[in-house]
Structures are given as C-alpha cells and as structure tokens.
C-alpha cells in the first residue's frame, strides 16, 4: 500500500494495436513527450484481438484501470476490426458496472500513429482520473489482494 505521504499510484494496463496506438506510443517516445509512468502497455496486432478475458484478468490481478486503444474508426489496419473492439467495449463496460467496477476504470482510446501527443495527454488524463477513483484492490476470496508493484519491486 501507499503511505499517507505519497499519493496513490494506480497501476494501469494498456492494450495497444500494433499499427496505430502502439506506433503513437513510439512516436510519443521519439518526440520525448512525457507522461505518467503508471501505465504498462501490451502490444496486440489489433484492438479486435482484445479479449474481455484480458480485462478481467488485469482487474482481478490488481490493476486499477485498463486502457484499450486502437486505430480510429475507418482507419483499421484490418479494415473494420476496431469496430468489433468498440462493440465489445460497450458490452464489457455494462458488465463491469454490474460487477461494481466504476466505468471510469475502463477507457477506449482511438489514436493514429501520428497522434503521439494525444496519446501521451490521454494517458496523463486517464491516470489522474483513476487516481481520483482510488485503488480498486480487487479482493479474491481466500487470497491476499495483489496490489501495485511498488513494494514488490522496492522490497
């Protein structure tokens, strides 16, 4: 856990598509744009590969929020698969709400390979929103809640 002194540092798992949003992240990097270190990215070929299982796994595993990102509608490298990601996102969100997970903990972000700045800005915005929501600390019956990696690592 974080002590009183330090602000809560959320852990965010971010899924990016290989063609747009991951390249946007690359671009943010090459342009040396700064954003919050709370997000850890996973590269998928397409946002259409995003299996809701991944999201549940992340939340159950201690993540405080999940970002799903892909090409802008109409720009999908695979023609239209990001629309499927969008449909799944809409349904997934409804389920999460019923599970008591604030809608603000799951974000869908369209970012083209050119939008490094937007990508960075959105991550900062998202990180602050999640910080405001506080820790999720998903509890598993009969298990220690696994929380942010901070003490894991510093330990």
């Amino acid at each position: 856990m974080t002590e009183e002194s330090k602000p809560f540092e959320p852990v965010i798992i971010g899924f990016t598509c290989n063609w747009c949003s991951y390249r946007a992240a690359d671009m943010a990097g090459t342009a040396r744009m700064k954003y919050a270190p709370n997000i850890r990215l996973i590269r998928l070929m397409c946002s259409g590969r995003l299996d809701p299982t991944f999201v549940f796994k992340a939340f159950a595993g201690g993540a405080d929020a999940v970002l799903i990102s892909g090409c802008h509608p109409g720009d999908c490298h695979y023609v239209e698969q990001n629309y499927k990601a969008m449909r799944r996102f809409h349904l997934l969100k409804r389920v999460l709400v019923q599970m008591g997970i604030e809608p603000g903990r799951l974000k869908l972000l369209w970012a083209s390979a050119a939008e490094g700045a937007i990508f960075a800005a959105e991550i900062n915005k998202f990180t602050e929103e999640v910080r405001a929501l506080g820790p999720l600390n998903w509890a598993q019956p009969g298990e220690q809640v696994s929380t942010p990696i901070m003490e894991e690592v510093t330990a």
Partner: protein
Amino acid sequence: MSERIGVYICHCGTNIAGIVDVADVSKWAGEKLEDNGVVISRDYKFMCSSLGQELIQKDIKEKNLTRVVVAACSPHLHEKTFRNASKGAGLNPYLCELVSIREQDSWVHTDKVAATQKAKAIVSGGVARVMHHEALEPLRVPIHPATLVVGGGIAGIQAALEIADAGFQVYLVEREPSIGGHMAQFDKTFPTLDCSACILTPKMVDVGNHANITLLTWSEVMKVDGYVGNFAVTIKKKPRYIKTEDCTGCGICWEKCPKKVVDNVFEAGMGNRKAVYVPFPQAVPKYPVIDDVNCTYYLKGTCKACEKFCPTNAIDFNQKPEEITVEVGNIILATGYDLFDARRIPQYGYGKLANVYTSLEFERLCNAAGPTGGNIVLRDGKTPPKTVGIVHCVGSRDKNYNGYCSAICCMQSLKFAHLVRERTGAEVYNFYIDIRTPSKGYEEFYQRLLEEGTRFVRGKVAEITSMARVPEEEGKLIIQVEDTLIGKQRRIPVDMVVLSAGIQSRHDSKEVAKLFGISCSADNWFIERHPKLDPVATMTEGIYIAGCVQGPKDIPASVSQGAAAAARVLGKIQQKEIALEPVRATINQDQCSGCRICNNMCPFNAILFHEDNMVSEVNPALCQGCGTCVAGCPAGAISGTGFSNEQVLSQIDGLLLLNISRMAVPVES
C-alpha cells in the same frame, strides 16, 4: 522449469540508462525471475550493435538458451535485428521477444525510480510471455505471374503497358466499349496544351496490339476469390452482339443504323450516337457494340439494318453474357472517378439555364472531334459568346458537397479561359476561392493567363440567374458574387458560364471496394496502405491502386501512380513467392461447434464454414493475423500464433508481477 531464458537490458547509450537503472533491472531480473526460467540476465551499452548481438548469440550457444528477451527500443525498430541474431545462433527467431523500455519508458518518464520499476515490470511481462512462444516458420505462397488491371483510363493503361512490356501477362478490364477513360474526352491538356487524343491514342493502340495484354472491354469483374499471389477473378463479358473475330470495324453498321441516341457518356450529352456504335473514332478496340436498350430490333423485333449491310456478317443478335475466370497473382485497381453533378447546386442553374455548361461539356465543345467541331458557341449552335464566366471549385472545398479540393479544377479552368480567348476573343471572368498551381509549369501557365488579360474575381459565386435587374442584364446570365478583394457584391452579366465541376469517387466505389476486400475513406476514395510511404498498395496483400480511385489527381500524377503500381507488382512477380508473417489464427476442429459466430467476423473472408462436418476453418494464406476471431470465439476454439491467450495472459501476470508474488491462484487448506 524446462525453458532457459536469457534477459538482455540495453543501455542505448544514455537513452535508456540515463533514466532507467539498467544494472538494477538486470540484477533484479536475474534474481526475482529465476523461478520463471531466467538463467542469465545481462545489460549492455548497445544491444543492437554487432557486439551486443554476438553477446546474445554466445549465450544461446553456451548456455543453451531456449528463449531470449531483449529490453531495448520499440519492436518496430529492432525486432527483426534481434530475431535474426537469435536465428544466427540457431534459435528460432520467434522465440526471441523484444520489449520496449525506451519509447515506452525511459524517453517518456522523468522519475527514475518509477521508470526503473516500470522497466522491471515490462521485463517481467516479456519473460512471462516468451515462455509461451512457439517456434514458427513464415508462410510461403507462390505468386502467379499474371496481373489484373481494372479500369482502362490513363492510369490503368500505363500500368498495363509497364507490366506487359516487362514480359508478363496482363488482363485489362474496362466496362465501357473502349479504353481511354476521361482523358479521351478532353481536348487539350494543361499546362502544355498538347492535344489529349494525340498523346493518348498511341498508348491505346499499343494496349490493343500488345501480345501480353488480354483486353476485356465491355466487361466487369463479378467475383474475386483467393489471396495474394493466387487470385481467381470471375469477369462478365457483356454481349456486344458483334462477332469480333469477323468485324473489321469498317463502320458501315453505324452509318446504316437508323436509331439516334443521345450520347450521355462520351459526348456528355452534347451529341448523339447510333444504337450500334463505337464511342469515338479512335476507340480501342475498334469493334462497335449494339446498345440493346435502344436498338430498334430489341425494342420492336424488326430492323436488323446493321445485319443486312454488314459486309462480313459480323452481327450476332443472339450473343449472351459470358463469364470467364482468370488466375492472377496481383491486382491493380484504376477505376477512376465520376464528375460532380452540377445539378446538385440549384442556384448555379445548370440544367435550367441553357448556357450554363459543365467542364466536361465544355471539353467536348472545344474538341475538334466534338459535336460543334470545336467551335465554342452557345446552345443555339451558332452564336459565339462575347463574355464567359468560369466558376471554380464547383462542388469542391464546400462542406455541403465535397470538402476536399479536386486538385484539377484550377488548371482546368485556366485552360478553358485560355481556349475561349484564343478561339472567340471573348471576355473571360474566372471566379475562384484560391488559385492553386502546385506542379511543374502550372504557375507559369497562370501568369500567362494573367498576361492574356483574363479577369479574376476572388469570391465564391452565390448565384447564377437570368433575372435581369437592369437593361444591360437583359438576355444575359448574371453571376452574383462577392468580390472579396474589393469587399463588395457584384453582378456580372455574361453569355456563357462554365462550371468547373470537381471530381468525386465512382458512384459504385463502395461495392467495388467490398468486391476486392479493401477499404474506402469517408469520401469513398480507396485507402492506400500508407498515405505517404505506400500510396499505391492497399491493406490487402496483392491489391494496388492507381489514378483518381485513390484521390483526385491530374494526368501526370495518375500516370506516375500507374507506373509505380506496375513496378510494385513486377517486384512481387520477380520474387516468385511471397513470405507471410506466421501470425495466424487456427481453429481447433475438435473444439469448433460450428456456431458460425466467427464466420462474418473476418474482413478478408479467411474463415470458411464446412457445411458437411459443420465446422469452420481458417485459410492461413488469407488470414492477416488480426486475432479478432480468436477473441470472438465463444468456444475458445480459435488460437492465434504469436498472440495466443497464454502469451497475453501471462504477460499481464508478468506486468503485475503476479508471476513473482503468486505463480498460480493458490488454494487454501
């Protein structure tokens, strides 16, 4: 732990090491990730350098590594580098994972502690993930040497000739009776003003005579099966009712044909043709077609004048549509554009006011082979105009119609202005928003027009009317415009108005895109693979685009893109086979219940359903590896190589360090 993993942390000089404590990360990985199979963890100044690569190769050999994780820059930069390095040491390249701690970490963070922690998490994720990698081989498919070119305009002609001249078979499909496209309708071409026909016709003839080109005019593509290197294309040949093997193109049939028809295609409605016709004298091929919608025989059952007079008995009223299938390795789409329909802007009066012309009509008007023999006269057919207004950007750069710039209108309008002055000496007004002359010789042409005394009014025309307010407006067309340079409304009476209509995507471009499995932009232009670096390829392997089908452009641009597409195709043909990334989906037949949910999930039609045993299957050559079906299968029967559930789920575990705090969900007791 059966796998032996090596972890390599790159300093990238200070690019990474300046923020991330690479030594600490390397040490941490060696200790904390031991249970995850890490047998060696090193850091090095430049992993991508030959020394860095040798370091990895040495370990692979000496420490019998079965997996490699490199933490350095973005995979988009050096994934191949390190895969090849592994390969060099006898490790399957796909057993090497590159995770980014530069673009995704050191370059974007300032807090060293946090950045180092994040680097550890990223490495941990890579290690957890690589454990589930499999040895893969790229898929190799042969390339059929023949090519299909769709569209016989200048772009398609250029592409077809390039490939045919290189010695490979080309099928050129054109839905009109002749190739030539829009360019054949033009009189002069800007800025050089050389005659369109004079430069186009020879190319058309070459196509017609080329041994390597199978010309299929009056034909349309019905179906496209297969995938890059191995397309099977079904083409419908509409009946010409002419036995081309017997026809000499002598022209007696259309002389004798009693039925006149307004020619809305080639003559843009300015002139007539017969029911049996060739669109224009230089048509290629030379054979006419019988237009069975208007032909008296098909309407009334009698006539057959053409048949009576044909010296070679080449007329055949019983021809039926014919479907042929051709095998090609690559496809070039050059289906061109449609002219913006000026009727959509009622206040410009086109269709209501006789002497308002569209650009295409005007082209025919000044064309020596056109309805007036090249005389620029009003609709009455004799009176030459004393004043002519040319309106730019009609239907272009206008939210209500097309937001984009049609690219050719400015130059086209200048060309018209010049022709009017040259042939009639009439006063010419150009109404423009901006004058855009970006290509070679264009600006010079504009200056020339200015010198010739053509008048330019900067302002968007509000209305064109015949309602006179003052005597001198009587019998004229009045152009209502705000002159933004002097900042006041003007009413300019003219005899003739030419609407420089913009160009837009073909009315049926969406269907065509669907047919070939490619995508359209919001304006229905076909989308290129990359707007700058790959404007001729599409997202679908083996399908290329050339000319206005990709977006508005002028003749030189269309020609270069046609040639470029041809070059790309020739490159593929030379390779003889193509290697496809082995990132593919596969359906486990024993687990597939044939629910068919995945069936229309694939935009590449890679998933087929076997009615007989009621299971679905993925065609690996068609599959592009997006993984959407993997994520969508309700039975979990579809797995994706390269991005399997195991790989991603363990990467999540790794990123959250659950692989350290908790190998698996523990059980109390």
